[in-house]
């Protein structure tokens, strides 16, 4: 699971008001290099919750993601590379996502988060 996916996911258990961002429990990380697409990064940037991305990146040990981003930084090659790396190249292979309100644990196995709810949660 890439941080892009993490940035969109929330806990949707009945009664949970926000359920975002999900805390990350890391068992195994993997890095897969991929080609950077600056247009895609600029396009996706305004749709992200930057604070959640920043916090999640820090949980995964990516400390070079700044807390605040100015739109001008999206023209900076060096920043884009870090952004690309955090958003798309680092994968959570094994671990879990944890709801901030209920502590419900959503397991991530083989890179696929299991977001299905139990009968008493829908």
């Amino acid at each position, binding site marked *: *699971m*890439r941080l*892009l*996916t993490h940035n*969109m*996911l*929330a*806990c*949707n258990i009945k009664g949970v008001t*926000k*359920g*975002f*961002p999900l805390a990350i429990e890391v068992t195994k990380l993997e890095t897969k290099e*991929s080609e950077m*697409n600056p*247009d*895609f990064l600029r*396009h*996706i940037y305004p*749709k992200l*919750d930057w604070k959640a991305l920043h916090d999640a990146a820090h949980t995964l040990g990516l400390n070079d993601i700044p807390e605040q981003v100015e739109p001008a930084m999206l023209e900076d090659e060096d920043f884009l590379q870090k952004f690309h790396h955090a958003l*798309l190249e680092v994968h959570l292979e094994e671990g879990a996502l944890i709801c901030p309100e209920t502590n419900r644990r959503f397991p991530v*196995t*083989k*890179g*696929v*988060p*299991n*977001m*299905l*709810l*139990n*009968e*008493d949660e*829908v």
Partner: protein
Amino acid sequence: MWYLCYFLHRLLDYRLPEIEALAKLHGYSDGQKVGQGLQWKQAPDHHPDSPFYYVNLPNEDIARKVATQSLLLKGMYEVWGEGCTHEELKEAVDNYAEERKEPYLAENTTFKIVIDCFGKVLTFDEQTARIQSVSYVPFKGQVQLKKPQHKFWLIDIDAQAQQNGLPPLAAKCMYFAREIGCSDRSVISKYELSRRKYLGPTAMDAEIALLMAHQALVKPGKLVYDPFVGTGSILVAAAHYGALTMGADIDIRVVRDGRGPNCNVWSNFKQYNLGEPLGLIRADNNSPPWRSDVREMFDAIICDPPYGVRAGGRKSGGRKMLNGQRDAYVIPEEMKKDHIPSTAPYTLVECVHDLFDMAARLLVMGGRLVYFFPAAREDCSESHFPKHPCFTLIANSEQILSTRWSRCLITMEKTAKYTEEMAKDAHQKHIDFKENHTQFLEDNKERGSLHSLVFRPADALVGEAQNLLAAAVGTSHLPPEVRAKYRGKYV
């Protein structure tokens, strides 16, 4: 300028929408309102399912791009002349603007003439005779059969012949035309399912999946989502055109495990050297796990929802609980870790409602939702399809499965913003569905009969025809040939 489209005689209803989508994809949208297609022209006595149409495109460059990417077009042409007889054709070609003809007939060019006859196979001698019949065209270039610079086509439609089941024409019709571009269908065999490593029972046929990607206006860098991803067959087609992809499925064995480390959704992308999906998640379309403020994330959503025809739709929630057989229950803490949640059947109406709400929320403005919808044949018109205030219907391509049932490929474009009010309504409806689960299941039961028709459409059709004939003739034993050959939309 008007160009002649000569279509393949297949997937009849998909042909015009494909050209319209590709024209838009290649930048011809100025002056076109949403939902308003291209201008089309057809000879008066031609059947609507005839493979010959004239289309108005702004220039040859766009026409060529459209033609080379299309899958259902045999070729796109600049017509130099058309007529019912060789004499009429000669006159028309002679009268065609000299400056349009001259560059293609000049010295130092290479050319070839292709002979084609719709609805009839020509012998070698007949072909030679036809090539000689256009000797009045003043070619100065060299004939070259392999990779010529210019290709000229002499196409005719045999009025008397059976024409693949289309009704005969009043008179023979001939075209002499210069080829602008023709489709490359080798991409279909590249993605053929029989060579795909990981397949499920409802994997989307390669040709249809590629056509869906055309409808969704997929191009490099676009983000495409399939909420019922299965083995990824739709996303593979989107990735072929350069899309970045994401998918979700309720069945965790399909998205996570596949059939081992080298036979799963990821490996289906590796097999073709396509970029792997950006994300695969296990989620339920009925209660999607997106953060509530995520908006306009995807450029297109393409899917084949599970309507309980080939694979039954499932949603989360205890089956027995939803249909009232047992009271709501809580899973004890010690059982939670290994608990496998049960799922309940998911009806057509509810599934489409959820799909619309999700798409309205997550698509960018102008983004497209492309999906299949099953319908009884008499219901395959615009007024019968579900609507949503955010979407405008762009195209509806019917694919006939039997004398009674069809599936329609529906293309919709997001033309209005998703509002808080819509979110509230959708939530209310969601609760309503849950409370009336049993009622909705009852109402949808009749759709169950679709099952056999989809699995064995030919048998079902022969069966129906036999029953009819048997009733009329008074015998129950008839050969299978009674099946009507032509199964076009209007016949």
